[in-house]
């Protein structure tokens, strides 16, 4: 390069403006457009999509949600329709995943199971998130006796075996999807609460919370506008990771016969039904497809959670 490029910036007007006010060191990333905040979706998405696995996870979750919504239109057969003349048939052109011990179309059953998994997973996590965030925030912000009572309560729930608790809940409310959600949420909120409490404890002492107090903010406002938006990210990430766990837990409950009623084609149920065939050659489609569905679902949510954690983590924000 022999010639210098023409000088940019540094015109007298520019210099004067700098003198008067000074510019931000970090220019807005998208030229002159309105700047993006740390929590803005475009910014999060930009960081999220750099993670290939997270994109794969997003694809899986997207597919699951699609299946859950359009289940009645996708399933080639009714997932409940039994055909006792054609049980445990291997995969074929007509029955892609074969048929189960009751002669139901496995492909339709798996899709119906996906709908259940999504509904139960999201509902459970939403409920435990709500309980956990509220109690965690109160415990962390109030401290003292309130904190002690809430945290000892979480200890009790943590120490209580999930299965025994689930049996109690199902016995109380009867079998069905809702009792399963209640049972899983009841024993799943504690970690969210602990995370939220830790975040709140740290943020309560932060200078911007003190600043909010100095301009007369009430406790409620400090929690909702200053602590919650800054504390929620790790709790959300945890909740997302937990969806996979919830799906597995629901399947386990069903496998043990505690969860959803026997006639509903839930993945755990499907595996449970195939138990007599575990050793039988040529019948592995009975348990392999539901197991695979559980695996893929768990992994999908885990990948999404992993990507979200990186995308939301303010410490990684500097990386481009």
């Amino acid at each position, binding site marked *: 390069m022999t010639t210098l490029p023409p000088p940019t910036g540094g015109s007298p007007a520019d210099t004067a403006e700098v003198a008067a*006010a*000074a510019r*931000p060191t970090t220019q807005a990333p998208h030229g002159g457009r309105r*700047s993006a905040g740390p929590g803005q979706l475009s910014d999060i998405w930009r960081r999220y999509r750099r993670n290939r696995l997270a994109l794969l996870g997003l694809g899986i979750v997207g597919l699951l949600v699609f299946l859950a919504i359009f289940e009645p239109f996708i399933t080639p057969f009714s997932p409940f329709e039994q055909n006792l003349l054609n049980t445990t048939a291997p995969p074929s052109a007509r029955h892609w995943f074969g048929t189960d011990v009751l002669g139901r179309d496995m492909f339709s059953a798996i899709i119906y199971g996906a709908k259940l998994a999504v509904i139960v997973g999201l509902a459970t996590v939403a409920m435990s998130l709500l309980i956990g965030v509220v109690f965690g925030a109160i415990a962390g912000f109030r401290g003292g006796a309130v904190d002690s009572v809430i945290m000892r309560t979480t200890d009790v729930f943590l120490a209580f075996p999930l299965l025994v608790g689930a049996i109690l809940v199902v016995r109380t409310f009867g079998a069905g999807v809702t009792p399963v959600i209640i049972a899983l949420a009841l024993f799943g909120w504690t970690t969210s609460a602990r995370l939220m409490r830790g975040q709140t404890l740290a943020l309560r002492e932060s*200078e*911007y919370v003190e600043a*909010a107090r100095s301009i*007369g903010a009430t406790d409620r406002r400090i929690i909702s506008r200053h602590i919650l938006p800054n504390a929620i990210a790790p709790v959300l990430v945890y909740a997302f990771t937990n969806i996979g766990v919830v799906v597995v837990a629901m399947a386990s409950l069903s496998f043990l016969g505690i969860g959803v009623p026997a006639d509903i084609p839930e993945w755990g149920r499907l595996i449970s039904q195939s138990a007599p065939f575990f050793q039988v050659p040529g019948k592995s489609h009975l348990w392999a497809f539901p197991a695979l569905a559980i695996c893929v679902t768990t992994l999908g949510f885990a990948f999404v959670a992993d990507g979200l954690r990186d995308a939301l983590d303010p410490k990684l924000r500097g990386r481009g």
Partner: protein
Amino acid sequence: MADTAGTTPTSRGEDVLGASGGSRTAPLLEVRDLRVHFDTPAGTVKAVDGVSWQVDEGETLAIVGESGSGKSVSAMTILGLVPSPPAVFPGGQVLLRGRSLLDMPEARQRKLRGNEISMIFQDPLTALNPVFKVGEQIAEMIRTHRKVGKAAALRKAVDLLGEVGIPNPRVRAAQYPHEFSGGMRQRAMIAMALANDPQVLLADEPTTALDVTVQAQIMQLLEDLQASRNTAIVLITHDLGLVASHADRIAVMYAGRIVETGTCEEIFTAPRHSYTHGLLSSLARMDHARPEKLEPIPGQPPSLSRVPQGCAFHPRCQFATAECTTEVPILVPSRPGSDHLHACLHSDRVAAAHSAPRPPAAVATARVETGVPPVLEVEGLVKHFPIRSGLLFKRTIGAVQAVDGIDLDIEPGTTLSLVGESGCGKSTAARTILRLQEPTAGSVRLGSRDVTAMRKEELRKAREDMQIVFQDPYASLNPRMTVRQILTEKYELLGGELTEDTIPDLLETVGLSAEYADRYPHEFSGGQRQRVGIARAIALNPRFVVLDEPVSALDVSIQAQILNLLEDLQREFGLTYLFIAHDLSVVRHISDRVAVMYLGGIVELADRDDLFERPQHPYTQALISAVPIPDPAVERSRERIVLTGDVPNPADPPSGCRFRTRCWKHLELSDPDKQRCITERPALDLADGSGRHRVACHFAGERQVLRG
């Protein structure tokens, strides 16, 4: 934009040094045209871009620069501590007695580290390993480089701890880092750095994390050690005052390059680069009465990934011409044959500007309006933090006496500064006055209202009249709210008319462009964030504002901008300030009255000039004498009172006078007088007839410590 940097002349800077330094014998440590670049997704960051310097035995070279000027990276590179990738080294050499270090195999580099060259880091808290005993860590350092037995190494470690002035070295060597105070840790770090008699000591901001009285101890120690061992010291710092008293030669860095280098006298008395000149004239000086205004450097240091073309300083330079925007100036001698080099095209104009008399200082007397009822009256304010113990039923087993009975009045439109070292309770006092923390005892009156007696809702409304600006502009703004939301919140909470123009007007008042309203805090620099914090505080015209170290987290060139803004706002809106600070130079500049705090109590309270020119309390005197003044001539003639030890534990303060354990005067007293200090706590009594100078010392007396 990254490609434009290819036009930088690469070798010319080196030529100049080669011409002047080539004839001598090889210097102890020489850096030649060093370049350290970082490849980031945002572009190439040229942290160090063609830097050359050298240092000889027994010499102290100071590398001065603001944050992001590349001063630390250049030192870390010498020790091979810069990870690569992301760093790349496109050019340059580091020569230790002629041996090139950068192309040495890693194993040999490791042998040099801590042996021939060692480093002292800024933060002694993180540089020591918390799970090993201090003595063992030093012994370990010795044993990595020498074949010495464990016991012998430990003995040597104890000797070293003694040499760096740690009392009871044998006991201390067996303690863990958390049992050491900050100053003691830094001493231990120095002991470790000296363990193998290095020829070169790299000190990266060695005292920045420490209080001034401790800083004075550490710098004295380094000088003594240098004298006895003939070590070369490379002192990396942003503090020009420190440089003036301790450096032989200075290299000023800006945006990855050295812009000026010369002896200490040359840099301070005859700067030739516009940036050096700007730094010197933006500094508040403790030995000057308040001038009309500081002269800040406008703007802020450039991001190293977006260094302006031509002279990197030109967008902020008052002398810049068209030439400066295209041509990268090279280092040239200020006089033929001189070692005083500068890279400024307008050195003659800088020289003229520097020697021109500064605009006359305003009358040095403080604005004192006696007879006017004070805006703020604090009486007997106490804040104790209980120390609780026990697992289930917590018992109170003691109290940290953070603030232990202070009285203050602030007259309307004036600034009272509360100064003291960390842990003296000044920030707690401010927060307790605002009732951000509940006082244990005492009363605070704001105008005619008793703040301490207010109920919750009443207090919330009263916040309109009492506001605070926080120290850390990075922590005091909610990262998820835009500037507009941050400012609007106050109007929502406290009432007050909010029109379309309110926020833009407010931003312009604090020197920010109105179009910044919809940006988030992370898009601003520290100085700009602090302006937002100030805007939040002055919205709705409060009567009284606490400024809690508002400039201590900012770069030198930005500090002056903020101080000027605060002064302008005070004049315009008649604000009353309580200024919390540890930096006495800034305090001298901005205050009308000054209160000096030590361990929860006020030891001296006086009008500003009275306090600085005629300090009465031995602690005030020590504090003033410990603050370095950015003028080598003044520094050389000054007397320094070096205090021993650290501030005692506020949960268990000494009996009687709290300062007596570190007091230089106490040592000179007769036994009965000493007994008085031990048993009787001195009251804050009038020191002279004026009725405005109070001091809490049984044996108060004037001592001149500001000048020689």
